[in-house]
């Protein structure tokens, strides 16, 4: 027995359902990253959120981007962050979140904004919504990065360099302060 072309009753395509499931996983775990009181759990939920995004890339027809997402964000960045958390975690931190005094107002504002954005998407007929071109070959991805968007690529590397210089400055031990302490 084969599945019908579209979902019964709703008329949605099946990949819409997959998209909704993946987006739900991504946003739900992103929310848990923020709400979780345990920073290690936050880090693990972040991995789950990245995984959901990788699934969406794959669904949108870009397996290479999905693979890069898994390799770079889950394989490298998340692991690095978890290590950093384990190495630097201090017991002295506050047990409860200190920034949460306006949680209810924020929640209401978020729901209202969600309603507005959702309504504006549903009420609009997007003229440019043709099927996205899918990119399967590494060759095509390479052309996109190093030919069509080469300037953006170079700017991103400059941005990362600036962030590294700044990050090292913030993290570096203050030499003059050490002298005073000695």
């Amino acid at each position, binding site marked *: 027995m084969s599945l019908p072309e579209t979902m019964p009753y709703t008329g949605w395509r099946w990949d819409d359902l997959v998209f909704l499931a993946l987006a739900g996983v991504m946003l739900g775990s992103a929310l848990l990253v923020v709400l979780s009181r345990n920073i290690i759990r936050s880090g693990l939920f972040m991995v789950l959120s990245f995984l959901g995004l990788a699934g969406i890339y794959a669904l949108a027809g870009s397996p290479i981007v999905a693979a890069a997402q898994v390799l770079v964000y889950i394989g490298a960045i998340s692991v690095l962050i978890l290590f950093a958390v384990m190495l630097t975690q201090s017991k002295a931190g506050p047990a409860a979140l200190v920034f949460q005094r306006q949680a209810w107002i924020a929640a209401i504002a978020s729901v209202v904004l969600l309603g*507005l*954005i959702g*309504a*504006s*998407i549903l*009420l*609009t*007929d*997007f*003229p*440019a*919504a*043709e099927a996205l071109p899918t990119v399967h070959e590494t060759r095509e991805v390479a052309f996109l990065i190093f030919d*069509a*968007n*080469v*300037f*953006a690529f170079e*700017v*991103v590397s*400059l*941005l990362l*360099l*600036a*962030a590294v*210089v*700044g990050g090292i*400055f*913030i993290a570096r031990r*203050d030499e*003059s*302060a050490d002298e005073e302490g000695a």
Partner: protein
Amino acid sequence: MTQNEWLALAPFIIVSTLAILIVVVDMIRPGRDHLAAVIGAVGVLVAMGATIAAGPIGGLGGLPPEGMALFGGVYVRDGMTAFLDLLFLGIALLTILFAPDYLIPRKLPVPEFVSVLLFAVAGAMLLGGGRDLLILFLGLELLVLPGYLLAGFSKRDGLSTEGAIKYFLLGSFSSAILLFGLVFVFGYTGTTNVAEIGDRLAAIASGDAPLPVALGMGMALVLTGAAFKIAAVPFHYWTPDAYQGSPTPVTGYLSVGPKVAAFALVLRLFMEALGPVRADWWVLIGVLAAITMTVGNLAALGQDNIKRMLAYSSIAHTGYIMVGLAVAGGATDPEVAASGVQGILFYGFAYAAMNLGAFAVVAALQHRPGVTSQISSFAGLGRRAPILAVAMTLFLLSLVGIPPTAGFFGKAVIVIAAVEGGGLLTLLAVVIMLNAAAAAFYYLRVVVVMYMRDPAENAKPVDVGGWTRLGLIVAGAATIAIGLIPAVTGAALDWTLEAAKTIAGL
């Protein structure tokens, strides 16, 4: 790439190379504070030379007057790019001149400061020339990311760290909002190229159809994100804390550099991409402008700390500049719309000189660590340091908008454009005049404290370092020359008008 393409990209390449060069020099010869400042200042001058050599502005430069598009149109060097690049480089030069005398006594490293500042300026230059949503967003991030770091540059100072964290959280939040808005614009038009977005919206706008809901949502989000960046009311709450906490030369830079650069972004997005639907946004900008200048000025009236006062006054100046944008969007006559854009550029130029100058005087007073930035610390400055007091008076009079200073012509260009626009725009001109009168009170109060109050008993003599002195001469000369020497005023007006007219559709 052809020779002209290299020429068009040269200023950006020079600034980003310079930022890297300073890191490398600091690695080879660590801790040479003055060396880094010299390399930075000279390099910025070289980049200014390259900008003039490339042009195309004021009949100068090797590029064709209609400009030059690179990488398939994602970066364009035209009159507007050239003018804005010169302005950003001028801001960088003054900031580099004002920084060492403040940073060195506090044992803060100058090389890192100059390098990070130059990265930010490279980002600002991308906003000046970017014609692609992707480049514009990346430029914005390259502009603000070093800004967060500069705000927290004084790592051991609690206020500095607090201001930096507030700036960082609200800044990244607003970047996300702006990005979400850009996604809506991209989703509706199907392109990231600013000129193409304009073309596709022109087709929609001519059909007399109501604004599509999703595009309206996108515009609202873009406007919200941009309003955070320029510190417009009601998105200004981070400003006083970030400005007060930052090291004073950084405050000067933050009040000018990111603000003018964000206005460049707003011009590209609203005048070029969303220009065809300008009837749907200009009233909102005008209302925000009126609220912004009024709230900024009223809040500034009650401040005892000069950095907080100048922070609120910078919010008020945002309001004045936004009137130029409202004129550009609301005027039916293209000539008047062009003079609205001209007002934004001219005011940005004048504001950069006078505001950086004012913050430099505050920084000079804080030469020794531990001096606060209360207005009372200016008491008797007219006798303790006459030249410094005269310089501060000049900058404050210019901020009020009294002739013959740069600030007067800045306000004049915007007010005249608003009056010519007619209707609601004339009302905005009236609001500007009322606000300028109210603002005179708190600026002149500082002058009164400087000349009519006796200095505190334990007041120490103020010694102004050589770097600061040079910077004050440059800022003061710019402030007075635009106002007093007709040839300079004329050139500034011509260049800004020429730059304004390169905006598509004007």
